[in-house]
């Protein structure tokens, strides 16, 4: 039974089952951050414009500030915390960001990674996208620090590496 005004939900986050009690108005971003303490997902606007809150919902990128937590009930959420290995070793995409100076303050970075991850995973085995496609894929993620170039270079490198290993 849930408290009055609260709804109980069950969902999978980064492969683990979670349950929680939320107000209907609680956003998925707030639920992840406040209830599950997964603070890697950042909130930059709460309006759907900046992309800092990007997570994957059932495998597709989504803005967790525009979703209510209750909308994620019964579904699978993936956040930036899922990328690195158990000992903290970086995912190849994270590694590419690090090598290419694809971050400065780091605030947009988790959302940027999740958008880039969607591109990298969806293009596995296919022709690597060109620079224009990479830029389009992250056009919904605002970075105020970098001018995007390190990010674009990092994604390009991650795509090249993937193409290299797929061959």
């Amino acid at each position, binding site marked *: 039974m849930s408290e009055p005004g609260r709804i109980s939900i069950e969902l999978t986050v980064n492969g683990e089952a979670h349950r929680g009690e939320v107000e209907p108005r609680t956003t998925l971003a707030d639920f992840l951050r406040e209830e599950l303490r997964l603070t890697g997902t950042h909130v930059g606007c709460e309006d759907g414009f900046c992309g800092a809150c990007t997570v994957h919902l059932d495998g597709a990128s989504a803005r967790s500030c525009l979703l209510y937590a209750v909308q994620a009930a019964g579904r699978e959420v993936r956040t930036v915390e899922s990328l690195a290995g158990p000992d903290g070793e970086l995912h190849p995409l994270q590694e590419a960001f690090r090598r290419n100076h694809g971050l400065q*303050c780091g605030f947009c*970075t988790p959302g940027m990674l999740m958008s880039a991850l969607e591109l990298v995973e969806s293009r596995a085995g296919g022709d690597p996208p060109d620079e224009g496609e990479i830029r389009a894929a992250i056009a919904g993620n605002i970075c105020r620090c970098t001018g995007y170039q390190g990010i674009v270079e990092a994604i390009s490198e991650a795509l090249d590496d993937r193409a290299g290993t797929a061959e």
Partner: protein
Amino acid sequence: MQPLRSSEGSASTLVEAPGAAPLVGAPVARLDAARLLRGQGRYIADIERAGMLHACFVRSPHAHARLGAVDGAAALALEGVVAVFAAADLPHQPLLDSVRIEGLRKTPQPALASERVRFHGEPVAVVLASSRARAEDGAELVRVEYEPLAPVLDPEAAAAGAGPDLFEGGNLLYRGEIVAGDVEAAFAAADHVVSARYHGNRYAAVPMEARGCVAEHDPGSGELTLWCSTQGPHQLRRRLSQTIGLPESHVRVIAPDVGGAFGQKIPAHAEEVAIALAARAVGRPVRWIEDRLENLLAAPHAKEQLIETELALAADGTFLGLRARILGDAGAYSHNSTSALIEPYLSAGLMPGVYRIRDYRCEILAAVTNKSPVAPYRGVGWTAGHTARELLIEKAARQLGVDPAQLRRRNMVDSFPYESCTGMLYDSGSYVASLDRALAEIGYEELRREGGPPAAGQPAVGVGVSPYVEPTGWGSDGALQSRWSFASHDSVRIEIDPSGAVTAAVGTPSQGQGHETMLAQIVADGLGVELDRVRVVSGDTSGTPISTAGTRASRTAVVVGGALALAAEELRAKLERIAAYLLDAEPDQVRIEAGRFAVAGDSAREATLREVAEVAFYDPALRARLPDPSLSVSRFHDPPASYANGCVVALVAVDVETGAVTLRRLLSVEDCGTVVNPALVDGQVRGALAQGVGGALLEQVRYGADGTMLSGDLRRYKLPKATDLPAIELHHECSPSPFTVNGMKGVGESGAIAAPGAVAAAVADAVAHLGVEIESLPIDTDRIVAAAAAERS
């Protein structure tokens, strides 16, 4: 397609922490990147304290009003709401700017408005509740009586005395003048006089992490701790101490990870003072996280200036004299960081720029209006002044029928040091070389040959050149040369613990620049140790030496890096003395390299840093020989001024039917003297260029006729997206400063200063055939479309 990697590959290929010196000059990968990439950064919104409450501000819906009663009863009746505070509940001293410039009037700013609100969004009350959502519910129920007053929005009218007055004494806060040489004689002797006007747009830093803080007061010790998204913890501590009335010893400010700042997080913000007071009053920790609407509405804006310029030229194009009038729109308060003069005054001082101009006169005015106050934003007042001057030169070139790049070139400063007519001592530079390099890289000659009005249906293409000089590395001398009264020095401390680990403590936190890495490189080189042995800590006033100014004014490498280099040198000498004792050698025979000490000519005698540190701390016999073997060195540093330079070039295509401007190429030649970490420098240069492009093409805070702010979300206030920018092409020149440690200069603001001028000049070039002048930014595409339509019909 453009190549993905920049033309000079060195900086985009990072190297891992190399073991051996020299590290200075190496593009070392950021030491803290992995943490941020894993999502393990710790920003303000990630900080939790036991019993913490959440705050939401009640903000004025009016631009200008008399403030009546504030009634929080209905809010307090709501479950979860713990307190509602208005100004009268939280007595404090108002915030004041500390700038000492004669003739500048002060405008006390309360943490919560009392009696009067002066801008849309000004905080009036604060609601504390068990969650942010609950606090927002409460804020909606707070009833506030307002008696609206006419808003003052036009700075020109405000300067002319139009009221109602925001403060006693009128709305004009400052009028002054810079006079150099004999400008009247210069104009009398001129063959050509060209004049222009420019309205620099009001835009804002818009860091992706908005402002925020967590305050906690310990009634037992009387200590107040504020975790705050700030650039200057010591400066904030001082302001809190002054407003709240606690000694500085009892105020601790901690800057955790900061998600971008760019100047906006330099001031002490009214909200931060209010949160500190509220936490003390309620006896529980309080967290305030600003939302995006509040950030666009009530966080400081920047850059708005009205500028009139006039250039006197000889028949051959030589600049003879320059006249200007600069009016800064300060917003509602002369803000506590840097005052109402941050825009017009700094703009006036750098107006001659890279050009040999000896006869100059500039009138400087600053007025208050009913808008959010203006504070520093990357490039500060220099952006608008630079843009106005470069557009003036562009216009002069067109009037004289000469090439704008060549007109610039013939008037450039070309020998150093050079003292500008406003008293800046340009230490060294590559002004002409950077211009020539930029022109060669963009293929200027060819672009010029192809130039001219476009064929029907084709976009109009234009190229804009924007050479710059940037005051950097502000110590007190740099500030003084900008005629700014400003304590701008640092102390640092380097310590080695008994395990041989090195900690460098500095007062300038990073907001993503990568200072920890860059400073660690300097320390590692200076000491002769491996990079991964060095940890740089910053951001906590209780553990770091004082930085009077904080992270701003492109000063960290020069001032703090310089201090660390000097401290490291001293500590290294001490280490070698101790090692000599341990190895039974003369100090001048011992050398440390990569953390190991060796005796010249005797490879058998060696010691590790750990062994030497162990001796320093625990060997009583050493104490008898060396009265102070402690492995801690503090160093104060306040370096002479230094000036970076370079040249930005933009190539644009303008669709005159839709007004759409496409930035085809953006190129910069940067010269910031000795570079510590080229990858970090490139990151700073690119980021600043992107912000400059935003200012030129997209960004503007808009107000309605009633003073309501109209651009309160990121759809209406547009930031550059990845698709708005081309791959940015960077090239480097290197003119080490003769005056600073290692020849370093600052970097990080040039693109924000010079890119708007480059883009504006490029668009002006593209649409010159339509008779359109660029007189304001962001580019007014409607005017271009209308001019094109008029030409067709």
